[in-house]
């Protein structure tokens, strides 16, 4: 796993309300929060974390940094991420929601050029239970184990984690790629990371209606993922509606490779079923399906 308790982490926007919540939560969990950045607050400290006006002032004191967690106002997030990338940080986790999509397009191009891993925006970030917290996942809902949990939700991720924990199924990681329109990393990227992660035995993918990332994930799992996967989709009862009207229909029909109905719960559930991935009807079914897969897996290993 690329995230370990020795990873050195900074929090950008640490003096914003979100940062004030997030940074101490991370530190209490044992994450090495070596500095906070908030322009205009240089020289102050937050719960023992030194605050700097700029990242480049902190670097000579704290050495190289592994990850940046961004809690700035949304219109300042692109700049904060570029500042982190310019300073050599290659893991950038965007917690703040509402970052304009074209800022994300700009940032994603930059991240691709510099091989930077982006998570978020509008994401609680990453938790590796018992190891490190990079974001605002409620630590007490998680417990170490072998289920890799990927989603694009916030609180629904916590709900599923808590469901697993209560069922005695610990997690190797909890990560949300983020709920905004354009996000920095995709399900396939994370599926690949977890497929290669030694601690992960089963992957739980929590999806939602809208977009085609679940369809793409189903396709990718079928092609490239060896570990067993359980899926769950929220929004089956949501009313159907037009997205972008007339033009939206034209555009979706051209760009999406997954059929005209893409984005609906049916489209997503069917995509998983076609890929022979079990789909939980409700959160409480997730542990049941995970246990079945672990059993099958164990039998296969034994046999």
């Amino acid at each position, binding site marked *: 796993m690329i995230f370990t308790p020795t990873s050195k982490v900074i929090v950008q926007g640490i003096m914003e309300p979100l940062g004030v*919540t997030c940074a101490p939560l991370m530190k209490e969990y044992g994450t090495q929060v070596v500095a906070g950045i908030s322009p205009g607050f240089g020289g102050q400290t937050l719960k023992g974390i030194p605050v700097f006006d700029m990242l480049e002032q902190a670097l000579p004191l704290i050495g190289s940094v592994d990850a940046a967690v961004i809690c700035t106002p949304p219109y300042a997030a692109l700049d904060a991420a570029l500042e982190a990338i310019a300073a050599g940080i290659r893991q950038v986790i965007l917690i703040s929601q*509402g970052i304009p999509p074209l800022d994300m397009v700009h940032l994603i191009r930059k991240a691709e050029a510099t091989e930077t891993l982006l998570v978020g925006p509008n994401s609680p970030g990453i938790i590796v239970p018992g190891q490190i917290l990079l974001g*605002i996942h*409620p630590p007490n809902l998680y417990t170490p184990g072998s289920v890799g949990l990927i989603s694009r939700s*916030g609180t629904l991720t916590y*709900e599923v984690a*808590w469901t697993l924990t209560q069922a005695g199924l610990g997690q190797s990681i909890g990560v949300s790629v983020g709920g905004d329109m354009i996000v920095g990393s995709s399900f396939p990227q994370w599926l690949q990371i977890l497929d290669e992660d030694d601690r992960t035995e089963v992957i739980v993918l929590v999806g939602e209606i809208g977009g085609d990332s679940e369809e793409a994930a189903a396709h990718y799992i079928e092609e490239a993922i060896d570990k067993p996967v359980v899926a769950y989709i929220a929004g089956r009862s949501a*009313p159907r509606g037009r997205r972008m009207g007339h033009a939206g229909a034209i*555009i979706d029909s051209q760009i999406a490779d997954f059929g005209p109905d893409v984005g609906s719960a049916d489209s997503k559930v069917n995509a998983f079923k076609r890929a022979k991935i079990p789909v939980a009807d409700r959160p409480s079914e997730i542990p049941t399906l995970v246990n079945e897969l672990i059993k099958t897996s164990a039998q296969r290993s034994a046999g």
Partner: protein
Amino acid sequence: MDLLEYQAKELFREMGIPVLPSQRIDRPRDLKGLELPYPIVLKSQVYMGGRGRVGGVRFAENTIDAVAAAQTIFNLPIMGEYPKVLLAEAKYDVQQELYLAVALNRSIRRPVLLGSLKGGIDVRAAIDEMKYVVVDQEFSPFFARRLMLKMGLQGALINSVSAIVEKMYRLFLDNDLDLVEINPLGVSPTGEVMALDGKVTVNDDALARHPALAALNPKAPADPLHALDKLTPQTARSPEVVSTLNSDGQIGILCNGAGLTMATMDLVCQSGGKPANFLDIGSETHYSCMPDILGERLENGLEAIAQNKQVRVVLINLVSGTVSCEQIADAIVRFLQHQSRKVRSISEAREDGLVSRVARNPQLVVRLVGSHLAEAKERLSTTQALIIDDLEIAVSQAVSFTKQTKKPT
């Protein structure tokens, strides 16, 4: 945020995209002061598509025709939407109609340029001929020329049409658009091009940095799916907008986070319940998110949901990392106190006592996950709110309340 055609064309004009001389018509008599020469076209300004097929676009040869046409259009709903404004526009002689668009594609995570040789009202034909170019790297005009060649344009049209796409892209980038569409782009017999209809959607998250666009405030019809699916970030203290689902539903749903709201609603439906409305009081990823704000939003949210007198039961499902269950319980208690005071004051005002039934508080079923749950239970123990640990049990309980109790008459 969608713009109306005339607003989109104003942006086109500023960017140097050719548009016809036109005039905004707020009421039929405005046509008496028309500065355009006849014949003209009158177009219903609505957010819905398909106005052309149902009579929302009419030609007029003189003022008498025009006033009559305007009256007809003002009274013609387009998919349920009445126009507040019409656009009067000069007529244009076209030889060919093209479709052009720049849109943000969420799965490719890049803007795409779209073009079809078959523009106009026949959407099916446009789609069949549609070509696209992904703007994978920073835009440069050659991306637009690439679209021209894919579309099959030749000669001088390559340059004149790609110049339009270039300007559309600049508009898209400068104004944080989700979509800019020209359909059709008219090509005259002499090869001149003209944007005959346009559609612009501004990204809601970016709207605050474009005050001039935000001021256009079109008040587009609310779309319940929109609220869930676009996950529109509300500012931390923005007013609560409850989405109505079923007019005969009796359960209100209040959660934090869009995914959790959808999952909870799914469970209610799977258990045979019928949601009346729902409210997402916001996830924890807003940069100005503070514990006290969630409590405040919960209180206001409950008030808003309870406005719908159809709602007999409110299912509250909150999973929080940053706010303790105790604080949430406090907010619920405050709401209940406030509600009972309101009921009392209304009953006092009206001695017949009838209103007390109408203004009766809905039953609250509360399910909380987070820290200090025991304290929360303690707080709620003296109220009518029922607090249940397990989500599915809470859902069944909420549904069974609607079945037990008769609807008030």
